[in-house]
């Protein structure tokens, strides 16, 4: 017997208009099955209005041990933030 072996990541949209957020994962044979499982497992209390399921193997992820080379160039650029620019009080609501 074939094992229900594919791992799917589950994303839920809690209310209309907001982004889907990752809530967890589950095993299923097909995407359709993953969707119904996700409904049973992750929305028993009506946590969502829309579910996305994505095969885990289809996700390409950066690794935390690569953080230095990946994000290091961002660390010395405070001028990307509004707070870098000190404006007089009269104008500071800009």
């Amino acid at each position: 017997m074939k094992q229900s072996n594919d791992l799917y990541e589950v994303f839920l949209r809690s209310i209309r208009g907001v982004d889907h957020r990752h809530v967890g994962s589950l095993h299923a044979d097909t995407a359709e099955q993953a969707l119904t499982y996700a409904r049973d497992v992750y929305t028993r209390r009506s946590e969502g209005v829309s579910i996305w399921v994505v095969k885990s193997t289809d996700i390409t992820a950066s690794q935390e041990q690569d953080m230095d080379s990946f994000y290091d160039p961002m660390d010395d650029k405070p001028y990307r933030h509004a707070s870098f620019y000190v404006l007089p009080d009269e104008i500071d609501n800009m």
Partner: protein
Amino acid sequence: MSDSGQAIFDRRIEAEQKIEPKDWMPADYRKNLIRQMSQHAHSEVIGMQPEGNWISRAPTLKRKMVLLAKVQDEGGHGLYLYSATETLNATRDEMNAALHSGKAKYASIFNYPALSWADVGAIGWLVDGAAIVNQISLQGTSYGPYSRAMIRICKEESFHQRQGYEIMIALANGTPMQKAMAQDALNRVWWPSLMMFGPHDSDSAHSGRSMQWKIKLRTNDDLRQSFIDQTVPQIKFLGLELPDPDLKWNEERGHYDFGDIDWDEFKRVISGDGPCNRDRIRHHKKAHDDGQWVRDALEAYHQKKASASAA
């Protein structure tokens, strides 16, 4: 009996719920969104050109890094907006072709040259300032992917206007020549900034329906007035002359009155006859064509991988 797509759509708009890509939507709603969103995306991307010209000529290393970061953000904003537009089944190639043929428009302000360093200050302060007024309102637009792109963009915009105003403060408090340069930039950038909000409500071709569909939540004139009201005190703080002799506080209205906008100029520039229209499109085409070798290399790599895994 199940409701028609139209009835569900109408109810959602009425209840101020978002419309998402897989929902049924009227063909004209989709068309209108593609027009507005792709125009918005093109504006972000073409908008990199006038400021980009000054990256190599910024007066200090600090200003250069700041300007580079800002222009980089605008490229990112274009990407968010193109991607959001693609959720409506418009392809990037179609949008690019429409930009190149002149069928798709972009904010007319970017067809003016940035003549001096003060223009970089005035653009950040006024052009980004005007864009922010519009974009804050669009965070509430009825199309989900557009709304979420706007929320992200507004967060990133916060430094654009401040860095521009900081440049203006420095120049306005500098030598008489620097102050004159700031005044000249304000005078030139002011009117095209007001035009960014589009024609008067009474002349705006798309406004009525866009408001009904809650794609737009505030009218062109309403947004323009907010921008003027918030900006006049900022001009005064700089100690610069007002760029319009008719700019006067109207006690009764609780708003600033202002002079007539030259709509003939607006029409001329938006339909292709501004000072830089041809340059902007030529440059965009060239940048696209110059990148062909990258796309070719990607395609060759893809082919090689495909035949390797087939073997």
